[in-house]
């Protein structure tokens, strides 16, 4: 398959959101986002600031597109607050590994759930590459939609920063 990476590359958070909620992905992309006033997001920011303070390469912006929390000799690390969204977290990290591979850099990755003292090792397989490519194609399609994808009720809706936005309506 011929895959034009330049056309499809996007920010890591969008890959993450793609696996959480397509509607959230669309809204976030259009700047209609609610992370700012949300306690849990603030928590994440503080955690981020305090974790791995001795690491040299923190918050590396690569290719002016993806921001990797920590880059070391053979690993990249993502810091996350809780492992509740494990799959989206893994996909995000796999995307970073995929991205780096396109730049000719090969690394492994870990997700660090600092509060839970848990580390998940991630390696990019051929299977993963296929998955990432199809996700990137889908993401592009979603972001080109003229209006947001409809609400799809998910078990974690109530904890989402977008909950009030999505579910506020008048009941007859």
């Amino acid at each position, binding site marked *: 398959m011929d895959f034009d990476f330049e056309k499809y590359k996007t920010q890591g958070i969008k890959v993450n959101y793609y696996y959480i909620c397509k509607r959230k992905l669309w809204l976030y992309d259009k700047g*209609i*986002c609610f992370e700012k006033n949300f306690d849990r997001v603030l928590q994440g920011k503080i955690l981020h600031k305090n974790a791995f303070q001795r690491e040299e390469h923190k918050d590396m912006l690569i290719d002016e597109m993806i921001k990797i929390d920590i880059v070391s000799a053979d690993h990249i690390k993502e810091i996350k607050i809780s492992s509740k969204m494990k799959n989206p977290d893994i996909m995000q990290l796999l995307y970073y590994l995929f991205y780096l591979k396109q730049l000719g850099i090969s690394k492994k990755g870990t997700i660090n759930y600092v509060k839970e003292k848990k580390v998940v090792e991630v390696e990019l397989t051929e299977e993963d590459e296929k998955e990432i490519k199809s996700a990137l194609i889908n993401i592009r399609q979603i972001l080109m939609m003229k209006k947001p994808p409809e609400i799809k009720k998910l078990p974690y809706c109530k904890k989402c920063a977008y*909950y009030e*936005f999505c*579910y506020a*309506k*008048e*009941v007859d």
Partner: protein
Amino acid sequence: MYKDYYIFSNGKISRKENTIYFEDKEENKKPIPIEQIERLHFFGEIDLNTKFIGLISQYDIILNFYNYYGYYIGSYLPRKKNVSGLLIVKQSEGYIFHEKRLFFAKCFVESAVFHILRNLRNYKGKTDEVIKEIEEEKQNIFKAREIDELMGIEGRIRKRYYESFSLFLNNDFGFSKREKRPPTDPLNALISFGNGMMYNTVLGEIYKTQLDPTISYLHEPSSKRFSLSLDIAEIFKPLIVDPVIFYLINNRMLKEDDFDIEEGICFLNDEGKKKFIKEYQNKLETTIKHRSLNRKVSYRTLIRLECYKIIKALIEDEPYKPLKAWW
């Protein structure tokens, strides 16, 4: 929990590390912890500096300034960090296309009138006549084809509504009709002050969203005011401000000596303002169980939810249906 802070005295405000200090003329220093501020309201004369502005901007705190009579002068709004170009385009579209604009405008008036009638029904027996008249006039909302017409209908309803206040208030302070520029009697002063507070509260909630406060539908987008705030305030004035006024008067909490008259202008003095603001804040923080969210929300949050619903309509997600208090 973020709060509104109201400062009535004259003095100066300064920053020391992460704390804000207010110092009055007698050099009494009072700390205000920055993490707890949502908005600061200055009713007195205040000296402040850019170091202070810098800090409050980091925390997205809004400053509101009022003149000697308690009239709103203006705000300082920190640089906006959440903007959506797409939404501004859609918001403008909503203004440009007459049908869309008229629809929003009608919704705002319809909701305002719903809440006006809801207030009047609390005084059944005294207000039957006026309720009937307003209900008749209300039918014209749906027939209106132009914004001017709608404004006319709204104006007539409001006039009738205000005139009826003396029927159920146990002190009307000699009120006969609504006078804005300037208010010359206590009840008019109270309404003006309350509506001004509402305008600010709504503006603060709009500011938390990506809506542009200058693009509006019922009121003409204006260069002098944030007219979207006026639009949305229509819904909430009868829901929040008016019941506070009725409560304060009928429980004899506000009296003649809470007002001053100078050069023909009647206004709430500091004591009066404090009494009003206390009840107004209580009202904003009162919670009700929201039916679609299935959680408790405050009256203040209802304002933000109204903004969300407007956004959703603009991005063609869900048609707009204005709030009609169901509790």
